[in-house]
């Protein structure tokens, strides 16, 4: 059976800034546990010699040429912002800091 605990779900929700009710935490603890169990079952079959699938279609090296394309105008860029000062996005004072 899975090792997902209520505490882990609360921790994850905190990291993701999602407020969960106690009922939701219970429900997700069960569901996430089920997902982890399912993946563990797949892992039993897939040994180290089976490479991880990153994409349903086996593709790699999809690159773009280093050529400048069309950009948004400043007005367009700011159009969806809840608040701006005419040139920059305005956000509330941040308690964190650069990562």
């Amino acid at each position, binding site marked *: 059976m899975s090792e997902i605990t209520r505490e882990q779900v609360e921790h994850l929700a905190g990291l993701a800034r999602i407020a969960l009710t106690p009922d939701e935490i219970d429900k997700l603890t069960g569901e996430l546990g089920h997902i982890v169990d399912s993946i563990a079952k797949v892992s039993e079959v897939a040994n180290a010699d089976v490479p991880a699938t990153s994409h349903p279609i086996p593709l790699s*090296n999809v690159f773009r040429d280093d050529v400048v394309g069309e950009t948004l*105008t400043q007005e367009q860029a700011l159009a*969806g912002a809840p608040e701006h000062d005419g040139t920059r*996005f305005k956000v509330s004072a941040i308690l964190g800091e650069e990562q």
Partner: protein
Amino acid sequence: MAARPELMDYDKALEMFEPVVGFEVHVELSTATKMFSDAPNEFGGEPNTNITPVDLGLPGSLPVVNGQAVKYAISLGLALGCSIAPTSRFARKNYFYPDLAKNYQISQSDEPIAFEGSVEVEMPDGTLFTVPVERAHMEEDAGKLTHVGGSTGRIQGAEYSLVDYNRAGVPLVEIVTHPIIGAEALAPELGAAYVETIRDIVRGLGISEARMERGNLRCDANISLRPRGQEKLGTRTETKNVNSFRAVERAIRYEIQRQAAILAKGGTITQETRHWHEDTGRTSAGRPKSDADDYRYFPEPDLLPVEPSLELIQELRAALPESPAVMRRRLKAQWGFTDLEFQDVKNAGLLTEIVETVAAGSTPASARKWWTGEIARLANAAEVDASSLVEPSQLAELIALIDSGELTDRLARQVLEGVIAGEGTPAEVVEKRGLKVVSDDGALIAAIDEALASQPDVLEKIRDGKVQAAGAVIGAVMKAMKGQADAARVRELVLERAQA
């Protein structure tokens, strides 16, 4: 502001503890476009103009990898002696901070493009130190926040922040070292020399402007101490905002002294980020390492793996420029400097500046004279790196003006001050400040005649073989010309006068 922390005497700290350092250096690549969008890789101009829906993380937009940035990253990995991963992947680093609009940064986690290499760093005494490199990975830069309100303009007390996303998505390579053991008392110097070597490597590759003062090259320094004889590494701090070679050196020295004082009293070091303050020469506590570092990395579902072919890797390897160590040997021979002259230039971190000044047309000797002389003096006085004061091309232009006789050394120093003050190119400063040498012989002769009128016996003395008597006249003429005359030419004219 916290009380001034206690510091242990540096030599005593080294007696009791062994310093272990490590570096994370971010290099901004000078591609034409961003890492995952075709917006121009330019910032500093009008805010929020060099962006596309991808850079804002707008719904429905999808990133596409810049092939040129991948090549640059591979070249850098090879220059660092790294293995290039046959398969490398991008990953999402999730965090909440509005310097990126997506709430995640596209980076690389456990599958970086380059891993396990080493960099030979030349120490101030000329010996080589091998710095082990753990990895070099690709990622995107973040936007720029300006904190508004509050008294200090810093984060604490800010009422709101303004965000410019022009820099968001600019391609970065982050180079991470293993813990570096064995530098001992020279750990601070090693730090500065390492970052300088990385700068020389990326400039040699032509993949970045690599100017620390502009943030093209950024360094975080990890520092820990362990008691002599202890195997286990001590708790480290990560000092950010060290934006010059000099700052890297000072910050490491400071942290060694600060941590030693705490440990000697039986205290413990908090694992945290610290900020270097150039003005006070101290670090201050930032964010403790905790939940906030749980970035929940997962493979970036919008991007495919990067699988460089062996042919591409070989092609890029063949195109690598000479290593900084080989380059130094070549330059020393080409420039004809003495051992001492060359070592001085190298220790001052001015090799690249002289290379670029020579490339712009100056002789190695005059480039050395200015960089290690007047510019180094001004940089020392201002406590900044010499390279941040003036562009090599500007200095070359200044030297050309001296060589053509339009400026004397004395005037050139004034022009240099003007250039550093941002008054424009050397030619523009000459124009604005009216500093040109008076090369009109007529004006000089008039001034000489005037000087001779008040010192009539000078010509007689010169004719009697007392050539040094010309000095008084030359001095008077230079004074009349407010220094804007070529003293050698004035001397010639005075002597001609005596022979007439």
